[in-house]
């Protein structure tokens, strides 16, 4: 570490100056790009701010390097000292107990956000099966979510069916929709698959938007009934909270179990090396189909919960951006890591609520975050498989 610093001081100095000049040029470049959109003054401000930031970053670069190394060591240790079985059980039990009594402690607003977080956790866990476990990029996940929500909305408002009877139908239909999208997955790979799923998502949204007589068109469906819960009356919000909590726990347990089963291992095998998996006797087509159906099943469940929570559904809630948002949760937490995607969902739902003032910059930050994440930490916050694959480039 020490060698090399003192050897060619003159050359080093020159390099540093050159580097600095490059950075200033970069700052100039970005402000030039901003110029037509915002005018001269903001462009100049951007230039000075960027230059200052870049110079400052260069100044503290060494410090940051030490810090990230420390952080890496820390996260590594965090993983190494995983809790023993009994302690982890107590931790989990007490965590669940806190969640059980939360409606009596928290404010309505907070509870509302928690319910929304729960719905997104289910969605992220479902998408994680497809993208994280099986390695198939799905860009139309909101379609399955929409199918779940609309199924409940229609069954409830048109057929008068209750929540608990509709729920299996919602999840089942969503799973079926997943299987329908998966049919092309049996033939296509990589990017093409992603585009077909995207197209499917858009077609579903366009149908919901245009089939006025059945889905209510852009106006959506309102007046969806609140479910009964063993005759207990604890207020609308509390009710949603408990139903969502139950669904989240169910999703978590089932997904975790299936991940460890033969099916789950087959998914991972397909993700790691499809050809190899096929050679070892995994029926890749069938398991890909399972992954899509199983993952979409949870989207249907989440959709029904969303319809109940909002008591209103419209196509606007199920756009492409929604699919991307769920994908971001999976990527942020770590592709394939179950605790990771839960953390990802919590962060992406809670953070914008906390940072109310910067709400307008939310999507901007999301886009930038995706790029930064892919470049600097593709494995996500809690470490999925993103980095393991760096060495074995496919093709």
């Amino acid at each position, binding site marked *: 570490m020490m060698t090399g610093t003192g050897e060619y001081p003159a050359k080093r100095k020159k390099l540093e100056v050159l580097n600095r000049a490059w950075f200033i040029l970069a700052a100039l*470049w*970005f402000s*030039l*790009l*901003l110029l*037509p*959109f*915002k005018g001269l003054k903001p462009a100049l401000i951007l230039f000075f701010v960027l230059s200052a930031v870049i110079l400052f970053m260069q100044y503290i670069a060494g410090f940051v390097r030490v810090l990230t190394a420390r952080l890496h060591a820390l996260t590594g240790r965090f993983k190494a000292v995983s809790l023993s079985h009994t302690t982890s059980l107590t931790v989990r039990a007490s965590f669940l107990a806190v969640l059980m009594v939360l409606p009596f402690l928290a404010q309505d607003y907070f509870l509302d956000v928690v319910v929304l977080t729960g719905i997104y956790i289910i969605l992220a866990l479902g998408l994680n099966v497809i993208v994280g476990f099986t*390695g198939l*990029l799905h*860009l139309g996940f909101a379609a399955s979510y929409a199918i779940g929500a609309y199924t409940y909305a229609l069954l409830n408002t048109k057929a008068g069916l209750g929540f608990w009877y509709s729920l299996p139908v919602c999840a089942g239909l969503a799973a079926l929709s997943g299987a329908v999208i998966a049919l*092309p997955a049996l*033939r*296509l*790979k*990589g*990017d*093409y698959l*992603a*585009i*077909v799923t*995207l*197209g*499917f998502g*858009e*077609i579903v949204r*366009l*149908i919901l938007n*245009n089939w006025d007589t059945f889905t209510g068109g852009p106006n959506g469906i309102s007046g969806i009934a609140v479910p009964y819960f063993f005759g207990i009356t604890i207020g609308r919000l509390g009710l949603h909270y408990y139903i969502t909590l139950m669904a989240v726990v169910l999703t978590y347990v089932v997904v975790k179990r299936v991940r460890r089963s033969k099916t789950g291992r087959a998914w991972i095998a397909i993700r790691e090396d499809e*050809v190899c998996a096929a050679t070892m006797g995994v029926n890749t087509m069938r398991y890909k189909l399972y992954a899509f159906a199983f993952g979409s099943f949870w989207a249907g469940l989440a959709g029904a919960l969303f319809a109940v929570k909002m008591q209103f559904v419209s196509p606007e809630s199920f756009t*492409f*951006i929604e699919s*991307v948002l769920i*994908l971001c949760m999976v*990527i942020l937490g770590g592709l394939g890591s179950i605790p990771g995607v839960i953390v990802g969902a919590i962060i992406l739902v809670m953070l914008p609520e906390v940072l109310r003032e910067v709400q*307008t*910059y939310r*999507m*901007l930050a*999301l*886009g*930038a*975050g*995706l*790029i930064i*994440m*892919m*470049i600097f930490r*593709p494995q996500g916050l809690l470490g999925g498989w*993103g980095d393991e*694959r*760096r060495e074995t*480039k*496919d*093709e």
Partner: protein
Amino acid sequence: MFFQQFINGLTVGSVYALIALGYTMVYGILELINFAHGEIYMLGAYLGIIFFGFFTLTGLTSYSLSLSLALTIILSTAFCSAYGMTVERIAYRPLRNAPRLSPLISAIGMSIFLQNYVMLTQGATDKVFPHIFSTGGFTLFGATATHLQTVIILFSLVLMVSLHLFIRRTRMGKAMRATAQDRIMASLVGINVDTVIIVTFVIGSGLAAVAGIMVAMYYGLVNYSIGYMAGIKAFTAAVLGGIGSIPGAMFGGILLGLVESLGAGYISTEYKDAYAFMVLIVILLIRPSGIFKKSAEEKV
């Protein structure tokens, strides 16, 4: 009605073709779906409105309309090319050897970023491009092609032919074809692959910018969210003609424009946007290599 829809479809189709060229060129060289390409087109439309507005404000437009229009196109193209280069440098180059999903996700991130960047800097309301072309036109088989439509079709044609000549006849074009065939081999024979990729992005973004300005003139209205749908449609066009193939993209774009406008005329306008997706899905299922490519070799 058929000929009217045909002319409308041809106009929209040549715009799709211009955008599709950017997709197909980038895919040919990097095997990457440049998701942000639709946003570059949207940036082009905005830049066109901004520069034209600037020239109107400074009085150049009333002095010479054609000069200010030409300057608008040149400046917007230059800026869009700069944006395209920057997108490549930031979002794609660091991920060139990463797993295939990573650059795709980063491209989606870039697309969201650019969309919101324009929304924040320019506002969420529609922007208007002033009417500068007279409403008259040629009448052919009972259908009217306005002057603007004629200009769009002809200008696109000129650009496409010159791109074709550039790819076929120049040294740089040869380098691009070599890089598309085999990137590593191309670098071994002394082609600077980085330069080739930058040139690809510059040309693709420039064409998208021209498409953006022409659409802004054609519809008169521009919104920060137009890039997404146009991007998908152009991508469909590229796939339709066989992604990676430049004549394929031109043909695919025009075909898609015709399908869309005839579908809107004869079946239903409400599902206008869905036709592109349906064409895309059907093509990918039946003939994923596109209409022109002979056979798709599957890489394992």
